[in-house]
């Protein structure tokens, strides 16, 4: 079970979010201020943090948490929408969601962060594929056969999984996987996607796992 540490001083909002997340099978510890937050950090998989809090504000609490446990994802959830606030928040936090928000969006963002920090369940089902993220294995559920991917192919696929449901441009993919600046006209990425599709897709001519979004990039959607 995923443990969420949620710090929010607004009773109505806090109880609603707690209820929504609990219903979606997260274990939520809701604090009304950041005073004793450090006690709950060791058990938490993710922190959801408001900014305007009594006593220490969300920015200070977030920075302290990040200093203490760098690989604990923090999602800022605030009614402060100014660019300056977002920039300050994102200087240490991993995501920033503004109020009012839809609970589905909150959950989607929580999931993205959990995947990025590898805090979630290690089996992910994408269409006919089962991805064991911790073992770095991909299995075809139809045939029950493991699909063998080269190092680069797995990194590329992992990058899609970490950014599930998001459209990634060629530049983002190339720079995320190869760590170098993308040069216009470079075919390396397309060649790797073609090979990856040949291994993952049931019908590489009509890809269902790695979608092409015309004019923008690629997406792996669940």
């Amino acid at each position, binding site marked *: 079970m995923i443990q969420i540490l949620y710090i929010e001083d607004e009773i109505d909002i806090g109880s609603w979010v707690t209820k929504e997340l609990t219903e979606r099978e997260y274990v939520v510890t809701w604090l009304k201020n950041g005073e004793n937050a450090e006690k709950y950090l060791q058990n938490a998989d993710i922190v959801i943090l408001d900014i305007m809090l009594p006593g220490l504000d969300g920015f200070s609490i977030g920075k302290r948490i990040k200093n203490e446990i760098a690989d604990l994802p923090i999602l800022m959830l605030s009614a402060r929408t100014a660019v300056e606030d977002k920039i300050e928040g994102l200087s240490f936090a991993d995501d920033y969601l503004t109020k*009012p928000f839809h*609970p589905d969006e909150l959950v989607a963002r929580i999931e993205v962060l959990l995947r990025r920090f590898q805090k979630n369940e290690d089996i992910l089902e994408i269409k006919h594929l089962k991805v064991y993220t911790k073992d770095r294995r991909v299995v075809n559920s139809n045939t029950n056969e493991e699909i063998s991917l080269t190092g680069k192919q797995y990194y590329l696929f992992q990058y899609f999984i970490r950014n599930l449901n998001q*459209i990634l441009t060629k530049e983002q993919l190339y720079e995320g996987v190869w760590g170098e600046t993308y040069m216009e006209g470079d075919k390396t990425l397309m060649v790797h996607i073609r090979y990856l599709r040949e291994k993952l897709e049931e019908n590489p001519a009509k890809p269902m796992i790695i979608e092409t979004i015309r004019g923008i990039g690629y997406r792996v959607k669940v």
Partner: protein
Amino acid sequence: MREFLRSLQAKYMLIILIAISLIQIGYLFIAIFVMGIAKNMDNQNFSEDITNPDAIEGKWHEEANDLQHISEEQIIQHFAKWKKSYPEASMFWVDENGVLAEQMDVKEELPYDWTPSFTAKFIKERYGGDPFTVIAFIGKDETNGFIVLEITRKSFQPPLQTVYDQYGTILLIGMILIILLFITVSFLFFRSIRKRLLQLQEAMAIRDVDGLPIQIDVKKMDEIGQLEKTFNEMVLELRESKQREQEEEQLRRELIANLSHDLRTPLTKLRAQTYSLGRETLTQQGKQAVKALETSIVDTDRLIDNLMSYTLLMASKYKLDRKEIDVVRYVRESLASWYHLFEKEEFDIEVELHPFKNNKWKIDPIWLGRIIDNLLQNVLRHAKNGKYIGVKTESTDEYDAFVFIDRGKGMKNESIERGVGIGLSIVDMMVKGMKLDWDIESSEKGTTIKIKRYR
């Protein structure tokens, strides 16, 4: 008084005074010098008589005429008497036999025998020449021979002429030296002023990291020093004013951020309640009411955001940080985050972004993001029925542009939802703020918006 003494004006006046004094002292010195010489000459019996050749000639003739009992002794006495009055004179006596009988201080070689022809030649040579020569017969007749007086004509010059001849060059050099000294001191004085003024100008042109001029080190308290001091005071005032402005800006931002926060918090509560309500079993009418509520919440949220941005933009307090970015890449990434919303509404999405000749535009990415958000938001809200969104690049000889196309009912047939105005006003201000241009073509078949950058 102390201030006056420190001033450049006082220094310049001092230089002039010294120069004038030097000239005056020079004149005084010359006057004393000349007077001294004149007095000295007076002591030497330099009167008009002894400087007037005609008077000397008359006197020589007269005294020669008066001479009685011609003897060698008497002649020597006569010569000695004249020598006393005319120390530079030379004299000789040729006796009745034409023999050189006596001479005193004669420099040239004289013949012993004076033949008539030599005598005539001598007279001819000396007539009007130098030395001034007077020949006089002794006694009443010509039987006693003649005495000759020779004085260099230089002796007849006035004393000043003599002084000039002797000391003129020194005086001239002295005067030239004084003038040169004055010119040099003046030059150095003005050069130091000029140097300091140039340094001041350079210092005034230097800017600190915050774009303000920096303070100058004041070394002297003259007029330039006072100017530097005033400049420093001005810099200080400017700094204080900028700090005040920043504080006000910060206060305004805080106020808007807090206002926005305070408006959004109840809106979030409203959304929470609406969401919870939506999950209850409701009648068709109830479901519609919940949907309308949710739409209103999203609209209000957007309006608050636009209103805050608009207020900041109107007060020129919306931070603009232009930098060179790959604009095609940026627009593509922005579209990626909007794609799922259009997909959800089953839009036909057409994205054709080709590289420009120069993809680097100097813009603020946050502002461009906001422009794209406002334009796409408008399409989602007001052109939903067209079910089409196209984002393309367009390049002409004059400009590069991003084109946003929808197939809604156009601006004139605005959808029932309001709020399009403020969103487009923000677009307008941001586009112009980043030195870009834009135009809208709207008809009943749809709207095309171009964000252009002229080459």
